[in-house]
């Protein structure tokens, strides 16, 4: 019983999760799936540099979106750079802005304004969603590879954190609009990603709770990445564990035992996740060659298209 990914007409998809669960691969695959379904897509990563290669970008991604194909663009936002742009925009007098940005004091100030950097990232993404050309939206969908979950909460709660400090003025207005957009299920989908491992599953359950209840965001059932395939039937597994084989150090049997134990662990964690969240989950297979191998992202994209009902 495969899970369903409620990705229909939302224009903003935010992929989040614990570090190392494959958020970037899932972002690339979701972007690819949306492109395959005929949408014009912008894929965005925040503060790292791993999305480009998965989308076959030749050059490193930059803050300005790069067109990779006629319907797929990609960008990488550097929060510090976003802060610089913002200050330049506000101060206008370049020499002051530069000196301000270079001074330690400004970095202190930036660090002291909770949610400012995150707000600027969201602001930038909002700009892309609003961008129009020839009377229609430039991008149908913006898929964001958010920072690891410890840091994506600040990102997604930025409108509120900063809103508490800036109650009136242009920023307050922008914050309100961002907050409404983030919380509107017709516009936004937040997708938690996990692996079928205990630590990741536990963190995902907490994250899901926080995103949907505390922040009131439209959250999809988690995507469980890197699920090992079931290779052996129950009877076969029993045969392989039988006394005449159990002591053997034959590499085939070692491999089989390893795979059986890994699958059992994954199954238990999938069950725990379903139980805790009361929902089916979307599963992606473990790729032995890694998602960066040729065809890796395409395979994940096909699975996600199927789960979202995007497949033609």
């Amino acid at each position, binding site marked *: 019983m495969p899970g369903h990914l409620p990705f229909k007409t939302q224009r903003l998809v935010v992929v989040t999760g614990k570090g190392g669960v494959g958020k970037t691969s899932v972002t690339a695959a979701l972007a690819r799936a949306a492109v395959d379904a005929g949408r014009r897509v912008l894929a965005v990563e925040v503060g790292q540099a791993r999305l480009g290669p998965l989308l076959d970008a030749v050059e490193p991604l930059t803050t300005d979106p790069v067109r990779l194909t006629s319907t797929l663009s990609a960008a990488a936002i550097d929060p510090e750079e976003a802060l610089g742009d913002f200050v330049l925009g506000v101060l206008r007098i370049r020499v*002051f802005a530069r000196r301000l940005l270079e001074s330690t004091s400004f970095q202190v100030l930036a660090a002291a304004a909770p949610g400012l950097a995150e707000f600027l990232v969201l602001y930038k993404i909002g700009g892309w969603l609003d961008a129009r050309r020839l009377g229609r939206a430039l991008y149908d969908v913006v898929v964001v590879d958010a920072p690891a979950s410890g840091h994506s909460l600040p990102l997604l709660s930025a409108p509120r954190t900063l809103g508490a400090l*800036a109650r009136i003025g242009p920023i307050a207005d922008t914050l309100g609009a961002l907050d409404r957009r983030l919380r509107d299920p017709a516009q936004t989908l937040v997708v938690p990603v996990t692996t079928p491992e205990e630590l990741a599953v536990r*963190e995902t359950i907490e994250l899901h709770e926080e995103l949907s209840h505390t922040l009131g965001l439209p959250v999809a059932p988690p995507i469980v990445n890197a699920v090992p395939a079931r*290779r052996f039937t129950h009877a076969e597994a029993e045969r392989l564990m039988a006394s*005449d084989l159990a002591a053997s150090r034959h590499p085939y049997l070692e491999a089989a035992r390893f*795979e059986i134990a890994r699958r059992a662990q994954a199954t238990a964690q999938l069950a725990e996740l379903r139980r805790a969240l009361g929902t089916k989950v979307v599963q992606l297979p473990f790729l032995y060659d890694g998602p960066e191998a040729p065809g890796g992202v395409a395979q994940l994209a096909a699975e996600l298209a199927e789960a979202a009902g995007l497949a033609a």
Partner: protein
Amino acid sequence: MTLGGLIESRRVLVCVGSGGVGKTTTAAALGVEAARRGRRTVVLTVDPAQRLKDALGLGTLDGKPRRVPLGRGVHLDAMLLDVKHTFDELVRGLATSPEQAARVLDNRLYQNLSGSLAGTAEYMAIESVQRLAEDGSYDLLVVDTPPARHAIDFLDAPRRLLALLDSRAFAILKDPTSILPAAGSRLAHLVLSGVLRGLERFTGVTLVSEIGEFIAAIEELTGALRTRVAGTQALLRGEATSLVLVTAPEPRLASETDALVRALGRAGLAIEGVIVNRALPQSLFGSDAAEPPLPAPLGAPLEHRLQRAFEDLQALAERQAATLAPLLATARAPVIAEVPLFPTSPASLEELGELGALLVPAVAPDPALRSGRETA
């Protein structure tokens, strides 16, 4: 030096590495093993998973070590690093009067932002380490750090805080016009104050003036803080402290490790050894592993699938080795332990003990298990 040598001779062992590589679990397991070897040990951890938290008895955040009995009269202490609590304690300790402490503690910015103020959070965590090191009740402190990028902030915190105290930043924040070329001139003052007031109006944030007040309040503590920070820095760079990198054969870690090692270098710190987690044993799945006949015939279909399982894991092991090689070259330190990819993550005290024994074997480890890694 071997990992066993490190846990037996060092005063402070700091585990650094990216998120999701098993750093916290590794630190806990090393703590258990050190305690079993008779060292009075405390594990300081930042963000343990619930099961590990339960195993270590870390239910509450109160900045005090908790005693974890390991059986046979052996125990380990464990403590959650609590930034806010440590910061408050430090301010109280350094202030010459309760009123002076209150001026800092009651500041709205301090209350809201002390955690995010330019490395102060990390500094405070390191401060707890120093306090326990001075305390004298422990032989060994095993320190778990925040994930890579933040580990840099964490370990570099004393230097950065000193730089901040020495920099013009304080002066600037109290008088923002000092960043102008013609600092001090009336015109410069007028122009910039105007711009900053405009910025405040535009953002609706009165941060600039509030930070000024905060800095003025905390500056009174500067002298005492400076001495303290220099001491922490000396402890971190000293002979008694070692850094180990916890990593795993995953492509995403290459650039993070590179950035971490560089930043550590700038902070005058070096990695002494690498613990590789989640690696498939090369002896089993390496490309030169032997393939004898199966001990019993199992029928063609099952045998075929067994072969597929083996070949897939071989491919994975190969990919891991290729991923690990540049990562280890970057770290410029030998592999001092290798932990195989377990189907489950250890979390009970017993499992931590097993992991500890595996990390630091009592006898010399099986050389086959580490072949081709130390030279990589």
